């Protein structure tokens, strides 16, 4: 498994660049990932999505459905793609440190 070092932190990641352990997440992770996810500057709106995904995951043990993410953050799906070009799964969940989405993707 690949290991990434960034700003003095070490992260274990899989081939798709997802964190292996949610507990390893730190703000530096977001900094590290953002470029590969097509994000120049992190805004409050990015942070709002990341915070919600993390809260939801801690509480429920799964990522929220897209509909719930939209409803709670107030961001339409279109806006979520403006924030995270690869979308809520590959973009936002990866940055929030959530496990890789599975199933018939």
């Amino acid at each position, binding site marked *: 498994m690949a290991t990434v070092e960034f700003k003095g932190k070490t992260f274990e990641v899989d*081939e*798709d660049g*997802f964190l292996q352990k949610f507990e390893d997440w730190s703000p530096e992770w977001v900094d590290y990932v953002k470029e590969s996810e*097509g994000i120049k500057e992190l805004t409050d709106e990015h942070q709002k999505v990341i915070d919600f995904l993390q809260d939801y995951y801690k509480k429920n043990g*799964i990522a929220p*459905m*897209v*509909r719930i993410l939209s409803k709670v953050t107030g961001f339409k*799906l*279109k806006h979520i*793609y403006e924030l995270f*070009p*690869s*979308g*809520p*799964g*590959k973009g936002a969940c*990866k940055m929030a440190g959530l496990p*890789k*989405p*599975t*199933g*018939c*993707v």
Partner: protein
Amino acid sequence: MPKHETPLLDQLESGAWPSFVADLKRQAGSRQQKQNEIEFQIPVDVVDDLLGLLELSYVEKEVHWKHGGIVGVFGYGGGVIGRYCDQPEKFPGVAHFHTMRVNQPAGKYYKTDYLRQLCDLWDFRGSGLTNMHGSTGDIVLLGTTTPQLEEIFYELTHKMDQDLGGSGSNLRTPAACLGESRCEWACYDTQELCYQMTMEYQDELHRPAFPYKFKFKFDGCPNGCVASIARADMSFIGTWRDDIRIDQEAVAAYVGGEIKPNGGAHAGKDWGPFDIQKEVIDLCPTKCMWMEGGKLNINDRECTRCMHCINVMPRALRIGNDRGLSILCGAKAPILDGAQLGSLLVPFMKVDESYDGVKEVIENIWDWWMEEGKNRERLGETMKRQGFQKLLEVTGIDPDPRHVSEPRHNPYIFWKEEEVPGGFERDINDYRSRHPK
């Protein structure tokens, strides 16, 4: 010299059917030969390693791809199926082996110009292996690496005017039968409706917003050549509502043995001379046909448009002129709660050029299912959980006997409160005044 020994796969090169092993080997050899002409963007020996990996799976009887894989292109939430080999040291050529879904033209008609351009792109930036086509309909480009995805997407869109197909919890790539392009039974232009709906709902196709996957398929008639009733959450099947057109002279020609039944489909075996009574009239499911004075008669009011008689005598019987389609909902494979075929929702709808009627049904269903559908719940399962009645309510369609194959036999019948005189609020004391304990 092949890179890996493949004794088990080699056995699949014999026999009459086109051998995928022979084709793979030829492609592997071609990449070796052309490596000085083409600057291959993924390993030259990708196909050799695929054969090696497959041989290993044949020996061990286990798959050697890792679980899942999340890759894609910016702006889209689907279209690429990420895949990684679990033996990357042994088979580095397929360490990354992602699949790209490319949206196919309805009916899968091509010009060689287009296919050549696609092959040139795929030879250069992928394995050169394809699946023509995926079951949902897409052109499937089998095997490339992550850094190539955006490159391929750029060339597809900028040079070929060609988009990706769908994957994930979204509208998947729609598909249609050949329709009016070369079938006399098509009751509407399946390719056009398929194309129009694909374009109308591009957003829903590229950015997953649904509880789960959702498929459209368009069949021109009940023969179901794209199997929409089994393989699409919303199935559009052509039909007509006036009379079957009968050419009595042609009927006589069939009876007289001048024209082969079923377009000669059973010519490989001697089934005896054509017997219209036995092969058509007695097989009609509603028994609404009869011969009288050498003429074929159909009681069209009782005809369920099963296509049998038309299929047997294509030159004598034609579909009616008042054409449209039926919409059926909810087909799905077994997981989770059992396989389903589509259930009839709209018995008949004319197809006009605005497609407003079709779009209204689609969008009403989506509005409901997107709100009420549970995570990873297909439309068919939401229908089971919330009831067919709910589907009728959200689509604004009145219940009709055609909505059931039979009425319910259990008496667990729900009533709405407003349908019951006096409502549901009752006082037990009022009851006790007439019925002491």
